[in-house]
């Protein structure tokens, strides 16, 4: 029953923090201790292949742990630690931790669910309490964003529920099990319905509309967990739906997979373009997160052994570097109280550790060795090329370019350039953030150099479903296209970087310039004059892409909503008469029914 104990520990911790009320320190300590107890239980006791069950009158609830449970569980728990570290420094109250821990409970519980109803229960738990977390968010917009998030995630949840019932109806089993033997095309409908909430959670276009707002308007610490941790449930869902529920998707409906891959590619590209047009650091990162999750969908869509390994690895990498980036931004926000890129700049000397974190974060995002971003991108590119879909390939490559663009914007606008006057007394981000950054930098490099640690585990997850094609050991991988040794690549990359630095320092004609004296040309300006090139950053890009992007899915949705509102108005008209009209309904009803019964009377 370990699994229940784990969930119970989390729930009780949440409740305890609720009742501890006003004492913040105590609350933080309790939260940390509860978290540690729960995750220790998880790490030491949860092995693949455990089975639990629970009986609530008519519902027999079944749970099971698999390799995927452990894999995603560890990712989510790790990201939650980062969230806790960051939230020590945030304004929080009892309910804050309660909702966070219940979200965690849902997220961990989902990984164990063996039947679809309990899956839905825990999934909805997660959605619900993360909604409340967003609702408690940091600014005036957060209720609105939370609303959007709620509607979208419940939409997904209900689709899942409908799919569940269709599945139960056709297969007479509520377990997560194969549906590919069902006759007719209903199985595709079931798959699509079951996949919907995961596409929503993983913010696959066109289900991404909630994500930028919800990510950017929730509290900074929670965004770390929201983006880094909860989106993994979406990935887990891809896995459940495509491998456990519809096992023969590749042979029955290959075009469906192609659609998913394409959606992933489009998501990666469009979200990348949106990202570098943002002026808000968290919005930018939100789009970047969506873009990266698009790659994961591409990996699943290609549906070969190494593409799926790439997808899983990319999910892992996403957890690491998106958490890192959001954490850094959270730390910066803690000090400068803004996330508007136009109002920051030159913080490099004030917050060096954050700068390092952000720098390696964006390096990983761009997929440069020796960071964690490289192996997955490399595998994914190979998979796309192997598939032979040139258009998709170019789309994915183009997406990588956008990643460079927004990464540069981020690092430049926050840390480089001229320091703003009001930020002169800014200090390094406090202990919690710093610890988090250091903790995240470790896997960032370790897994980048030795991806085998994770790939081995991933291989266990999927080797049952797909023919193993990928050869690997701790530091190398072998695909049909070739062989790569990650430490070597990393060393080459680092040495090239060092080499070019040396060349730059030796041969470049440089002089040491003050942060304030760039861009000044000939004019002498005072210290107070704000000079920072971030206002119209990539303005030309906005000109190029802005107009076509204006037509959005959101507008279509709003049109739909208007239609429903119109129908609603008509329905409401029914209830707007006076008493005589209501009586008339009664008489009409009687007459109509009597007429319909007609001769039988």
């Amino acid at each position, binding site marked *: 029953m370990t699994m229940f104990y784990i969930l119970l520990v989390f729930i009780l911790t949440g409740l305890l923090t609720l009742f501890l009320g006003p004492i913040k320190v105590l609350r933080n300590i309790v939260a940390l201790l509860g978290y540690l107890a729960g995750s220790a239980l998880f790490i030491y006791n949860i092995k693949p292949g455990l089975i639990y069950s629970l009986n*609530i*009158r*008519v*519902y027999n609830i079944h749970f099971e742990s698999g390799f995927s449970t452990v894999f995603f569980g560890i990712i989510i728990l790790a990201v939650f630690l980062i969230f806790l570290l960051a939230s020590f420094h945030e304004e929080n109250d009892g309910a804050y931790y309660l909702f966070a821990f*219940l979200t965690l409970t*849902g997220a961990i519980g989902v990984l164990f669910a063996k039947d679809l*109803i309990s899956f839905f*229960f*825990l999934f*909805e*738990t997660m959605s*619900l309490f993360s909604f*409340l977390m967003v*609702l408690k968010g940091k600014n*005036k917009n957060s*209720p*609105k964003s*939370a*609303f959007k998030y*709620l*509607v979208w995630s*419940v*939409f997904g949840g*209900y*689709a899942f*529920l*409908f799919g569940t*019932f*269709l599945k*139960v*109806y056709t297969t007479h089993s509520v377990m997560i099990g194969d549906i590919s033997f069902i006759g007719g095309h209903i199985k595709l409908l079931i798959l699509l319905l079951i996949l919907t909430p995961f596409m929503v959670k993983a913010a696959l276009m066109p289900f991404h509309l909630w994500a930028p707002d919800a990510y950017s308007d929730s509290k900074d610490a929670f965004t770390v967990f929201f983006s880094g941790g909860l989106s993994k449930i979406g990935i887990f869902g891809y896995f459940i739906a495509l491998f456990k529920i519809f096992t023969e998707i590749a042979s029955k409906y290959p075009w469906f997979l192609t659609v998913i891959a394409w959606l992933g590619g489009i998501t990666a590209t469009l979200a990348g373009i949106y990202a570098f047009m943002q002026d808000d650091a968290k919005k930018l990162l939100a789009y970047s997160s969506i873009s990266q999750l698009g790659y994961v969908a591409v990996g699943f869509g290609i549906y070969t052994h190494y593409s799926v390994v790439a997808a899983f690895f990319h999910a892992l990498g996403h957890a690491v570097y998106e958490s890192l980036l959001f954490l850094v931004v959270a730390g910066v926000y803690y000090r400068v109280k803004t996330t508007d890129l136009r109002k920051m700049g030159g913080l490099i000397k004030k917050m060096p550790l954050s700068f390092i974190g952000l720098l390696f974060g964006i390096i990983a995002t761009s997929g440069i060795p020796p960071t964690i971003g490289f192996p997955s991108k490399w595998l994914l590119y190979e998979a796309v090329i192997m598939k032979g879909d040139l258009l998709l390939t170019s789309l994915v490559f183009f997406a990588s370019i956008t990643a460079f663009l927004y990464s540069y914007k981020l690092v430049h606008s926050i840390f480089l350039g001229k320091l703003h006057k009001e930020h002169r007394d800014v200090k390094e981000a406090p202990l919690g953030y710093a610890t988090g950054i250091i903790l995240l930098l470790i896997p960032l490099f370790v897994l980048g150099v030795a991806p085998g640690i994770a790939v081995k585990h991933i291989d266990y997850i999927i080797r049952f479903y797909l023919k193993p094609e990928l050869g690997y050991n701790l530091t190398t991988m072998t695909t049909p296209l070739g062989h790569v040794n990650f430490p070597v690549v990393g060393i080459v990359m680092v040495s090239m970087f060092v080499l070019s630095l040396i060349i730059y320092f030796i041969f470049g004609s440089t002089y040491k310039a003050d942060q304030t004296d760039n861009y000044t040309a000939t004019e002498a300006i005072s210290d107070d004059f704000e000079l920072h090139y971030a206002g119209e950053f990539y303005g030309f890009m906005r000109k190029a892409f802005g107009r076509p992007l204006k037509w959005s899915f959101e507008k279509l949705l709003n049109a739909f909503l208007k239609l*429903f*509102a119109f*129908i*609603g*108005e*008509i*329905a*409401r008209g*029914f*209830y707007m*008469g*006076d*008493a005589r*009209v*209501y*009586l008339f*309904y*009664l008489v*009409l*009803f*009687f007459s109509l*029914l*009597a007429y319909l*019964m007609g001769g*039988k*009377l």
Partner: protein
Amino acid sequence: MVSPILVIALSLFFAFVIPLLGMLSKKLPRWVPPISILVNLLILLSNMDKISGGAMLITTAGIKPPIAINLAIDRFGFLFALLIQTVGFLLSIYYLAQDTKDERFYMLFLLNILGASGIVMTGDLFNSFVFLEILEISSFGLVAVQKDKKSLEGAFKYMMIGAIGSSLYLLGIIVLYLSTGSLNMADIARLMPNIPDSIKLFAGLLFLIGIGVEVELFPLNAWAPDAYEGAQDSISTQLSSIISKAGIYLAARIFFTIFNGFYALEVVLYLGIITFIIAELAALMQKNVKRMLAYSSIGQMGLLLFVFALISKRADIFIFTTIILLALNHAFGKGLLFLSLGALTGGTREYYIDSLKGSGKSNVLAGLLFTMGAFTILGMPFFFGFWSKISALISIMKAGYVYLIGLVLLVSLFEIYYYGRVIVNIFSGEGKAQKTGFIYASIMVIFALFIIAFGVWPHPVFSFAHKAAVALFERTTYITSIMGGM
């Protein structure tokens, strides 16, 4: 052994005694409803073990049925009686804290509870009509008690439809009496096979209208938004948690036990889903939150009736378990919603969504409780609504309407939309600080505790509801336990 008939007799006694007490002291009358309902609850609970299998027979006038009126309490009725008394008790505590000047209000309130419990306890058809009238007339009075424009208009509309509806209900009773020579429910149910189909059809139609008014069935529910909106918050709670539940009981008793699922249920099947869809659509763009809750209430009742009518497609106890769960969820959830809405407005009766802006921030408790109520109605996990919603969907699936699940869920999405809009609105912006009184707050908390306790550990409720469903389902046992061997 305490006879359950005392529930009715003592309530009446207490109601009659209120004016006498009012002459002694102005403070005494307000204590009568809580005491009376508490006594009722104790009486009911003391009889809990005695009710098993079929129905518990309590004669009046010392003569066996069908000659004289009798009460027939089976587990199904018992559950509803318990529900009504519990909600009634909480509300009576609420009124204890209110500053109501007129003692007659307490009489009306007590008689309203009495009417509802009479309906769920009686075994006689005409007696149920009398109690229905008690319920309705006291409801008109309670709705109008505010004496402002809205409440008066709502009360008048309710009165007009209610009067004609109950008259038709009476006509239905008479038609059954003429064809069977009996007014006892069990006796009529026993003689039902002898009645020609055409008479059954017509009587079913009349009952459908009479009960349809109470349970807010589609074309007959037009009074409901007006009455809900016009009434004060606690009365709206009463309308949705008590009065419509008594209607549901009556519908189950008449259409299932007596008519044995004949014809009328098929009409209810279609009308139920239509009610659900139309009410939820109407709520979608509603700006007045209270009216929105009223539409939502109608919608939930529609879903409940739809699920109930599925019994005509497939005889399954689970469907009855489901309607009990839905009824319980709706009673507590809607009650909580109306009460917390009242707390959010701070008694100003300004229900427009814009005027509620930020009220959840200044009155956090009420805001959270409103959210909880909304979540249980929406069927969110950890709230009771989850189990009732899942059970409803399972029932629909069992009856073979699996594609309707999609429709139901789509319509539920509207619910999410309009509830979410309100929740978001009350938590954004800044509102005026208005604290709720301790008693008011604790009543709402008790409602919420019911919801959460049932939601976190539904096992006891499930088994209780299951037993009640069995009692309703086995109509021959009901008949034999009243009428003796067959």
